Structures are given as C-alpha cells and as structure tokens.
C-alpha cells in the first residue's frame, strides 16, 4: 500500500515516499510525511503497521540525537543503520515485534553517500537503490535497467519520475503525490513534490 524508494549516486542519495496515511479503505491524510530526520545528514523512511512506524522511528530518532548530545559528534549513517537493525532484531523475537520496513539514507563525510535497506525481519543491506511496498515489484526492474553508479542528480530524478509514472499506470492504488528529498554533503534538501494527475 505504501511506497518508499531510494537511489544512491556518487555524491548524493535521492529518496522519495508517498504521502498517503490510510486506515483500511480510507485515505485519512494526503500529505503525510514518512521521512524522519535522524540528524543533519541522515533520513529514516519508515512504513509498516500503523502505530509501530511512528513509535519505532521516533525512538531511533531520539536515540541518535541523544548520542550526539552525549558524545559531541553525530552517528555515521552506517552506525545508525546498524543500531536500528539491532533494535529491530532485539524486538523480533519478543512478544511485541515491530512490523516496519525502513530505508535509511545518509551522507558520511568520510565514506560518502549510503543507502541502507532494512525490513521487518531486521535484515540489513547497503544497496545502490532500493524500494519498499507493492510498488517495489513494479519499479525495481526500471531501476535495474536504468541505474548506473555514476548518475547525475538529473538522471536520478528522471528515473524517479519514470518509477512514479509506472506506478500511476499499473498500480491499483492511487498514490498521487510523493515527498522527495536529496541528501549530499551540504545536508538534506527538500525537492519539489512529485504529483501525478488522474490516470
């Protein structure tokens, strides 16, 4: 039902998420933001079961901020991703596992951009591009085809537009707008919202 996508370039990461907050068949909100800012250069995109997403994402967000307050410097994206995965794994075999699917995107001054794919079974993979949701079935092949490691920001946006067009054409649900953000060495930039008209 929900859709997340991330594309990593040589010096940036582009991420997008849909804007729908749904409750059974009703769209309760059309402008819901699924991205959580963990630090100046790290974004956590979170979808899954209704209450679990916000609870878990805010927990990670506050802990990352706490680390910065305690130690004076921020967690790197890789460290934040592993911390998140560890928390997911710890709760996985408890009575109350978190059913959330995540994409963590960040820019490390030492290692460069990074995109981490995590799912509700607490698997973690660093990937050049990734997507979550039913929409991923439709768009991963587009990414497989058109992605190259040295793509420019324009090219990444074009691939994103192609993916959204495909969703608009073939996906049974109407996801009419997407938040888009870009992370590079200068921080997190809000890009123009991607909207699609009626089919």
């Amino acid at each position, binding site marked *: 039902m929900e859709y997340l996508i991330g594309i990593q370039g040589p010096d940036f990461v582009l991420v997008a998420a849909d804007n729908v*907050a749904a*409750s059974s*068949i*009703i769209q*309760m*909100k059309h*402008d*819901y*933001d699924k*991205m*959580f*800012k963990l630090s100046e250069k790290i974004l956590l995109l979170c979808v899954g*079961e*209704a*209450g*679990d997403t*916000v*609870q878990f994402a*805010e*927990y990670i967000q506050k802990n990352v901020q706490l680390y910065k307050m305690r130690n004076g410097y921020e967690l790197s994206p890789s460290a934040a991703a592993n911390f998140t995965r560890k928390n997911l794994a710890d*709760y996985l075999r*408890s*009575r*109350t596992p978190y059913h959330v699917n995540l994409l963590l995107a960040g820019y490390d001054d030492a290692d460069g951009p990074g995109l981490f794919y995590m799912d509700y079974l607490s698997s973690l993979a660093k990937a050049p591009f990734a997507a979550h949701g039913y929409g991923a079935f439709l768009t991963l092949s587009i990414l497989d085809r058109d992605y190259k490691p040295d793509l420019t920001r324009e090219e990444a946006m074009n691939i994103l537009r192609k993916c959204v067009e495909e969703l608009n054409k073939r996906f049974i649900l109407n996801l009419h707008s997407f938040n888009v953000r870009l992370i590079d060495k200068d921080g997190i930039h809000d890009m123009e919202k991607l909207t699609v008209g009626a089919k």
Partner: protein
Amino acid sequence: MALEDICNFKDKPTHKTFPFYASEDTSVSVFTESLNFKWRGEMTSKKASDVPLEFHVPSLFKRPSSRASHSVSVRRPFPLSHGTTTLGFIFQGGVIAAADTRASAGGLVACPAVHKITPIHSHLVVTSSGSGADCMLWERILTREIRLYQLRHKRRLSIRGTAKLLSLMLHPFKGTDVCVALTLCGWDKAESTKNLEETLGVTDDCSPSVCKDVPSKTNLLCFSGPKLIYVCSDGARLQGDIFSVGSGSPYAYGVLDRSLSWSLNKEEAILLAREAVFRATHRDAYSGNNVDLFHVTAEGWRQRQREDLKEEYYRDMEKRGKKMDVKTKKAAKIMQ
C-alpha cells in the same frame, strides 16, 4: 479519579467476579496494575515536585509480557459495539465536532442516545468510536492525566501533547482487544514565545524544523489555534484538517470532501456537519438516531442542542419534494 491518585487511595476490585476461569485472577490483577500508571518521568524530575508522577509506560516499549495469558479470556455475551459516525473538521471559525448517538451491539440498538462527544477541558472535546466501554474509560483516564498535568505544571498541555500522551498510554495495549479511535478537537491557547522555547525541548517535537507533517501554511498555527488530531489504539496518531471515523465515515467523507472549504461561516459549517452525519446515518445501519454537534473556538467549546435526524430527513424530503412531479408523489403516498 484525579483525587484518588493524589490521596494514594487504592481501591482493589474483587477477584471473585469471574470464578470460572483460573487465569482470570492474574489477568484482572495485571489490568489494575497497568492502570496504576507510574512514570519514570525525566520531564518532571527537573521541576521540584514532591509527588512522584504516577504514570508508568515501562521502558516505553516493553508491553506487559503477561499479555499472552490474555488469550484465555472471558467470552463476550454479545458482540462489541463498533458502529458509529463521527467527524471533525477545521475551518476559519474554529473546529466542528459532530457525531451520531447510536450504540449498536451486533444487530441490536443498545442505546439510541449515547454521548459520543465528550469535553475534556474547556478547549478540548474528544469524539469517540470503537468499543463504547473502552472509549468511556480512556476518556476518563485522559481527563485525569490532563488535569494532573495542569495541576503539576501550572499550564495546560497542548493538544499535540495530549495526543502524544494518549498514544503512549494506549501503546502497551496494542494487540489486545482494546478498540479506541478518538479524535481530539480543540483550540490551543497562544503562549508567549519565550515559554515556548523553554518547553520545546521537553515536550513533543513541535519545533518548525521537525514539524514534518504540518503543511507549511499552517506552520504559523503550529503553536496556537484550532487543532484536530486522530488517535487510535493501533497506535496511529495523525494531525489534519478533516477526519471522519467509524462505520459511517466513508459516507460522511463523500459529503464533506465535496463542500468543505476553509472560508465557510459558522452556520454553513454546522449545516454541512449535520448533513454529513445525516447522509452517513441514512446509509449505515449502525449509525443513527440523533446528531450531537460541538463547536470549539478560542473562547472554548459550545454544544448545540441534540437534534433528531428524522427532522433532517423530512427537510431533505421536502427539498426533493419540490422537484418531484405529481405522479411520483402519488406513488410515494401509496407506498406509505
């Protein structure tokens, strides 16, 4: 309930009510324990308060492990009541909250005159849907906690803070049969900016840079003005301009989405809310009887007199009747 807490008055319910199930003792005592909320509060440790806050969401993420024993529970004598139509929306004149008044239990109308909209304090009303008993209990718990907060901190908790508090209180019960979907409709009083800076770090993340799900045009209203927040026992917490909850909500959305705009005046808004509830009760079997309407402004909430929806139906029929020709009128008369 607040007085009980302050006086440390513990009233243990009898365990003998359900003698048939051996596990009942443990489940009843666990429930009362989880009701005695004790809070390891970083928030209030800064303030000089002698009274230890009684609000415990243990480690915030460990739910009571004895929840597994809840799987053997008492069989319900009748199906729970879930049918309802409630709605709330924001417009230039404040917040309107409207709801029907039918409580249904399966196919039976358990009560035709229920109050689904409850005031919490002078500037906050909450519409409830889901299980009637759960909603009544959680409204009382919320009222108690808000009142305790006000007494301890000498200021009123913001609507966003209230919603977050409610969401955290409901979190331990996620996965159990608690079914509560509340819409908080209220008006935040404007605070002086200096106080806000101080409290920003302590209360919920309402700062503009982190205010992600608030559209930019309402960022200015982030701290004061009308607020509408939907909280449900699944854990969802959504702030928005229009919400409708319940079995009749799709029908209400159909009416509201067409005609709602920011610039409605108060009379039009009330008419729209009433018509939305009417259309929902017309189609939904589990909603009906009367409509309750509350209007919240900067001065507080005002309740309109409860109106029977059959009046609305006759008014609607009259409007249509003027367009009907004589033939169909005759046919309608014969059908009666």
